[in-house]
């Protein structure tokens, strides 16, 4: 009898814990989100001045891309009277015969990104001029998620320092804008196994089943 009552007591206690023990969990507030992307940043929004997007992002500097391009400025040739602007889609010859435009799988033509009349500039889809140095403004028209990551530091490469002003590598320093896929390459030499040891054999544990 005594045992029975003890059991009942224990059972009742267990039930109360089960019933009321979860109340604190139910009342607990959901922890606030830690996301910190600014709300006033609309990556795909095309304003009249393409550079206005830079007002909402942390400041940064970059190396001048135009110094690196061999045949820049383009107007050295294209400024001449003998080379009138030709918007026709055609096979490229002479100087630009080596350019393979794989990017966009045939949907693009040179003039999608290069300005027809102001040869030293790139051009946005809204026909705004963009400098060759600021390719991130152009690429961001389609790759806006990447562009946002680039501005805030999650994509791309920072150079020189972590403490002072940011210096970033712009898109075209790593990506060839005409053939964007980065080729695979050989890795740096395989590390040695520690002296006196042999490389371990790959053991496939699934082969030796215990059960």
């Amino acid at each position, binding site marked *: 009898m005594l045992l029975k009552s003890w059991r009942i007591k224990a059972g009742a206690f267990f039930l109360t814990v089960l019933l009321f023990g979860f109340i604190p969990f139910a009342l607990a507030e959901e922890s606030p989100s830690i996301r910190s992307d600014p709300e006033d940043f609309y990556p795909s929004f095309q304003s009249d001045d393409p550079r206005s997007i830079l007002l909402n992002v942390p400041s940064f500097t970059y190396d001048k891309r135009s110094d690196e391009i061999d045949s820049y400025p383009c107007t050295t040739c294209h400024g001449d009277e003998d080379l009138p602007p030709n918007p026709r889609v055609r096979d490229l010859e002479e100087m630009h015969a080596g350019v393979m435009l794989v990017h966009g799988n045939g949907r693009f033509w040179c003039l999608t990104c290069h300005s027809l009349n102001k040869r030293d500039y790139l051009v946005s889809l809204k026909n705004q001029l963009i400098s060759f140095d600021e390719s991130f403004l152009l690429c961001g028209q389609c790759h806006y998620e990447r562009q946002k990551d680039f501005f805030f530091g999650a994509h791309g490469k920072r150079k020189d320092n972590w403490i002072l002003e940011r210096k970033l590598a712009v898109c075209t320093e790593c990506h060839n804008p005409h053939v964007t896929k980065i080729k695979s390459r*050989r*890795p740096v030499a395989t590390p040695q196994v520690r002296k006196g040891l042999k490389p371990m054999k790959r053991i496939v544990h699934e082969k030796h089943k215990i059960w």
Partner: protein
Amino acid sequence: MKKQKENQLKIKIKNRPDFSRRTALKALGTGVAAVGAVTAGRAGFGKTEVPAEYGLMDQFGEFFQQHYKKMSKEEISGVIERIERKYKAKYDLDVKVGDTPPFPGVVFGYALNINKCKGYRECVRGCVEENNQSRDPQIQYIRVLELDRGSLNLEKSEHYYDDQTDVPKDGKMYLPIQCHQCDNPPCVKACPVEATWKEPDGVVVVDYNWCIGCRMCANACPYWARRFNWSEPVIPKDEINPETHYLSNRPREKGVMEKCTFCIQRTRKGELPACHQACPTGARVFGNLLDVNSEIRYVLENKDIFRLKEELNTEPKFWYYTD
């Protein structure tokens, strides 16, 4: 039979000489210390070669050197001068040993984008060149592991993947592992002589002159981040990096433990770590965790992140993220 054996044992114990191991060692120790001090430099852990220019007084100084944290600034500068003299004698090179203190209000954090890492091992090369790691036998702080895409089973990872085939391979992902600079570092707890500790900027460092080479920290580390100098490290003279730090990349001796320090010789001057600079893919993000506007904070707050072996409660300051 059993009783006989027990009796024999008792007799043996009774017949033991009447001084403990401790007293014996003490007596021995005082005698040996003086002799050892002189020979220590000459034959510290086997046969370390020390050139003649590194005099007897220097060897005494090396043997009786205090723990880094217990030394005053003057003592440390004296020690650094002596160490520079040693490198001059050993490598015939002016190696500058720095002692840059940590920035106040800075805790370093690292994030790595595993979508972007392609397994080129450029970070390993950059690290070895910067940190004066031994070329033969090879010591490398960073391991790039090759895993099946979609899996994170480190036991099935391949560290020694072939350098004759192009990377990234189809169906593989790459996971570089280096010291995670834990906020709750198990290696520091394991060290019996406190030769390793966590600096105010969150970096776990080693005093190579205080380390006794017992390798307990390497046992304790769940990330395989610590490396031991089993033999005299060999670095070609023209590949030695002369810009060093006492607690980081100064050339090590045989018989001491070494590890990644987030390149404090660079990062405490505001530069980026060598692995970050060497990475051609931009997969690495480095910065100050306490700065709300830093890139690392943006990544931690807005990306899908994970830490390796989080369940061990080591609180690593190294995150992996995807985008």
